[in-house]
């Protein structure tokens, strides 16, 4: 299956028990319920969804002294946070919406699975990714004596894409985290799709910036298609 995931912004790590000044979806909190004490994790720089949850796990393990894991299942579309001691996820900013957890959680447990699908990663039925096109402006000038000059301007290339998904995924998609800014669009889960797109691997994943996302079209019952234009610096 194909999927699309967003990058989240960050400009410095959380310092264990303190929330850094900028805290939105990139910060994740954990309560050591035995103590109790609050601990926070945040990447030092922008990261995409898959790397982000791995960073949370690493930083929270260091901060709490527990062994913390953050795993996502593409089958159930749920994020699970677990540890070898009792914990409780602590939602910071909009992270409940972003991760799929409930905002105000109570109690303690070794493992917590989100109630809803996250907004940072959306599972797709398929993704049509057209090979990269040069997005240059070319001015062809014709001079006397039959001479010509093709002056070009441009600094990026584009992929024309179509994303196909079921209605529940469309609800995640419409939240906007994967409709703007930097995203990574995976065309599949095996073979060439596991490597980055390049001139020898047009089936690879595309890592770029959303230039535009068109109006959705309901192709058939419960099947939605979104046109998207993704730009890549050249």
């Amino acid at each position, binding site marked *: 299956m194909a999927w699309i995931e967003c990058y989240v912004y960050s400009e410095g790590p959380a310092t264990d028990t303190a929330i850094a000044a900028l805290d939105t979806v990139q910060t994740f909190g954990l309560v050591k319920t035995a103590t109790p004490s609050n601990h926070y994790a945040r990447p030092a720089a922008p990261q995409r969804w898959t790397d982000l949850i791995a960073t949370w796990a690493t930083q929270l393990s260091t901060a709490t002294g527990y062994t913390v894991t953050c795993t996502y299942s593409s089958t159930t579309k749920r994020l699970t946070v677990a540890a070898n001691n009792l914990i409780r996820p602590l939602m910071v900013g909009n992270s409940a919406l972003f991760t799929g957890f409930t905002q105000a959680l109570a109690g303690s447990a070794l493992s917590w699975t989100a109630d809803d699908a996250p907004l940072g990663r959306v599972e797709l039925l398929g993704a049509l990714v057209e090979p990269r096109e040069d997005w240059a402006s070319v001015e062809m000038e*014709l001079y006397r004596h039959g001479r010509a000059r*093709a002056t070009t301007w441009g600094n990026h290339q584009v992929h024309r894409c179509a994303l196909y998904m079921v209605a529940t995924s469309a609800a995640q998609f419409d939240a906007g985290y994967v409709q703007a800014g930097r995203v990574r669009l995976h065309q599949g889960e095996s073979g060439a799709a596991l490597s980055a797109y390049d001139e020898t691997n047009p089936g690879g994943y595309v890592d770029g910036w959303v230039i535009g996302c068109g109006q959705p079209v309901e192709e058939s019952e419960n099947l939605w298609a979104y046109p998207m234009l993704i730009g890549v610096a050249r």
Partner: protein
Amino acid sequence: MLALSTTGNWSLFIDTTCDGNPAEMYESTGDETDAYTAITAYVTWLNNAARAWYGAATFSWSYARSDYAGARLTLAWTGGVNFAMDAGGLATLGFDADSSNTSLTAIADAVGTWAPTVPLAVRGYARSLKDGDAESAGAVRPGVPGLGHRQPAIEAIGKAIDAARVAFVLATAATPRQGSVYQEHTGDWLTLAIGEFQRSRQDLAYRWTIAAAGAPV
């Protein structure tokens, strides 16, 4: 095949030995900034009467489309003499250090080259003068047909890998954009200003319509 002039470093220093003679160093002039002009200049140097091996071997070059829609160059020679080069052309022409008695084939695609599945079709490469007293080639009809523009129609057909390659190549193109285009039906190389690439798709195939004009300045 399209050999675009690119922004990369095209300075070539190829240490060459042939037929047991002392090694000679090929040095490009700096004017060759696409694969066609670069390999042509090298072959011209190899065949020059000033070379110690002049008369023992005659060199020529050819190309073949690679799996990734680039052009893989081959250098061949007559006479059955031993020829060796160092890796001075690896970064541009794709030739690694190697030796042979008959031919050497590059191990990488030449920089800036595009060889689509269906080779480029170049039509209408003729001088054209527009109607009227004033036209783009000059305010007054020149009366010298040789000064009219050439604006050939270039088309190509290919697959996704061809599309991926051409975008990669265009990203490295120098500006003003120009290149050498091989015209299949005449066997000629044309040096042209390369304009806009328009791509359309039908099923799994892509068609390109490429704006071009000559001669570039």
